[in-house]
């Protein structure tokens, strides 16, 4: 049995090696993600986005005058299957890959693409080290990494608000704790402000006045909170009750109308990060419209990011004038491209600049996008 599969693999390899020579006239775009199994809803919209973009590009004459050919691999978000899928795509001779979807599967596959010199762009893998570790210079993404929110909030506060002493609270959950941890990290890296308190609070507790007293005692001028809106509205209400004047900054778990309704006047002047409003972008509207008319449904998760990633990859090849690795990577880092998630280019580590989140401030009872 083993021998037969070895034989098959060898044959397969032999064929695939032969392919690039024969079909050098197409641009080969690999797409990998979960297209079956329970995580399929995260992978299929991005795959369809790639198909929509490729169809459109091919109708308009392709890239560098060559047609774009899709190579789709289903890896079910499973790291083991993902490495196989990556090996397969490499042997298919793809020039660039749009994928993978899950952070774990992406990490497993990235090494294989790196060795093969293939740029990879994920629409959804948000794990911070994927870009920040510097291990994968071939990796890019069109979604903000998990720590981007905290970083954005901290950078904004340091640049625009008078921040000297910061108290950080979180609700002990994965999401809130993560936001708080990254905020602490960003503050320590940036310097200039002192962290005077870092603690978890019990979600759902009757009141938080003791911890608010503690915040006052530390003399914090800024309170960063990682968590969701029910606790956030209690915190700001009790800060107002206890005459604590620290600036309240939180995450997109708080950027919710419930926060405004429940906290009322206490929410005034609070900051929260949240996803940018993209629906006014013409390209965004066009992409969503194309999805609706083709599939008769609303696009799901990561459709826009997948659309953007495919556009960015093909644009980079077009601008570079070649499929050569160095040229494509260089053009990803230097050339701006218009996508459904805005006009973007990528930084040295591979994160899309200006993608994802904005800082919002509560002014007269509504969230107003800053900057």
């Amino acid at each position, binding site marked *: 049995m083993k021998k037969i599969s070895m034989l098959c693999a060898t044959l397969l390899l032999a064929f695939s090696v032969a392919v690039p020579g024969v079909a050098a006239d197409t641009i080969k775009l690999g797409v990998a993600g979960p297209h079956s199994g329970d995580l399929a809803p995260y992978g299929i919209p991005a795959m369809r986005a790639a198909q929509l973009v490729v169809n459109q590009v091919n109708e308009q004459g392709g890239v560098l005058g060559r047609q774009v050919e899709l190579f789709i691999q289903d890896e079910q978000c499973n790291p083991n299957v993902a490495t196989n899928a990556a090996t397969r795509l490499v042997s298919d001779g793809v020039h660039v890959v749009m994928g993978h979807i899950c952070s774990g599967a992406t990490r497993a596959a990235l090494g294989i693409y790196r060795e093969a010199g293939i740029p990879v762009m994920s629409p959804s893998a948000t794990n911070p080290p994927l870009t920040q570790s510097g291990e994968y210079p071939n990796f890019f993404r069109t979604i903000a990494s998990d720590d981007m929110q905290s970083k954005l909030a901290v950078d904004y506060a340091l640049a625009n608000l008078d921040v000297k002493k910061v108290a950080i609270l979180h609700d002990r959950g994965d999401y809130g704790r993560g936001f708080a941890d990254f905020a602490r990290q960003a503050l320590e890296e940036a310097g200039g402000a002192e962290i005077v308190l870092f603690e978890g609070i019990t979600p*759902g507790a009757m*009141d938080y006045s003791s911890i608010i007293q503690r915040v006052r005692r530390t003399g914090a001028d800024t309170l960063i909170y990682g968590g969701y809106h029910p606790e956030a509205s209690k915190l700001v209400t009790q800060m107002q009750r*206890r005459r604590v004047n620290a600036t309240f900054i939180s995450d997109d778990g708080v950027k919710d109308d419930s926060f405004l309704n429940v906290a009322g006047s*206490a929410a005034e002047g609070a900051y929260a990060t949240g996803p940018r409003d993209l629906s006014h972008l013409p390209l965004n509207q066009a992409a969503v419209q194309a999805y609706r008319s083709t599939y008769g449904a609303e696009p799901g998760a990561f459709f826009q990011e997948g659309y953007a990633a495919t556009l960015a990859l093909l644009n980079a090849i077009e601008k570079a004038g070649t499929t050569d690795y160095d040229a494509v990577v260089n053009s990803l880092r230097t050339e701006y491209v218009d996508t459904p998630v805005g006009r973007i280019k990528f930084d040295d580590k591979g994160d899309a600049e200006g993608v994802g989140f904005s800082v919002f401030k509560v002014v007269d009872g509504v969230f107003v996008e800053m900057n």
Partner: protein
Amino acid sequence: MDYFLELFFSGLTRGSIYALIALGYTMVYGIIQLINFAHGEIYMIGAFVALIVSGVCTIYGLSGFAILILAAAIAAVYAAAYGFTLERVAYRPLRGSPRLSALISAIGMSIFLQNYVLLAQTPDFLPFPRLIPDLAFIEPVAHIIGTPELVILITTLITMVVLTFLIKKTRVGKAMRATQQDLSMARLVGINVDNVISLTFIIGSVMAAIGGVLVASYIGQVSFYIGFLAGIKAFTAAVLGGIGSIPGAVLGGLIIGWSESFAAGYISSDYEDVITFVLLVVILIFRPAGILGKVHKQKV
């Protein structure tokens, strides 16, 4: 010193709310040895009724304190009706059966009431109007004790004085004490035990509702889920003070309120629950019936 006082009053406020709810647990337990797990839900229903009433009153332009008193009164009546019905529907039919059956019935009622409010009202958090206005004379010390805390403390104090009077000085109170000491003997001397039990549920529910209204207007929000955690904490308070003992419930509530407040203030809010429950364990090791609880000999 200021900081100590701030934490002291935070703990006192929180503790007196726990005490209000704990009284309902302890009174019911004292009479029929049932842990009424649906008690936290009565507290939540009290808060919801007050929200609806204050919504209506605001339309008619009443002032804050007037709305608060009216809302608390109507919430108390409603909660009393719920408490009464609860006992009739879920506990009285099980009076003669093993205690475990009644306990399961109590848990069932708790889940039912939570989900009933979830479906009938909303799964969202709702804003609760700030019915307690900030009084000007208290402004200099508002960071230590504000008007809402003051109102909560005074209301709790009045409620407890009234309760003590009711139990110690009235005929009904005498009947309640008799029923608590020995249910069948009380029946033999002509006390209508069923009425006494109903009354106990009604009194407990009224106090829970008052607690619910006070907390809701203090923290400014309600949801169908607020009864759960408050109920757990109040139940812990009742056990700590000695379940069945009325002064014990008040003492237990205050101890838990203070331990949470001082733990969060001086040590870390990460550990407030840890410290509270370690305290509970330690006290129960040395006084298994709670601080003021009496060890009852098992009746054969």
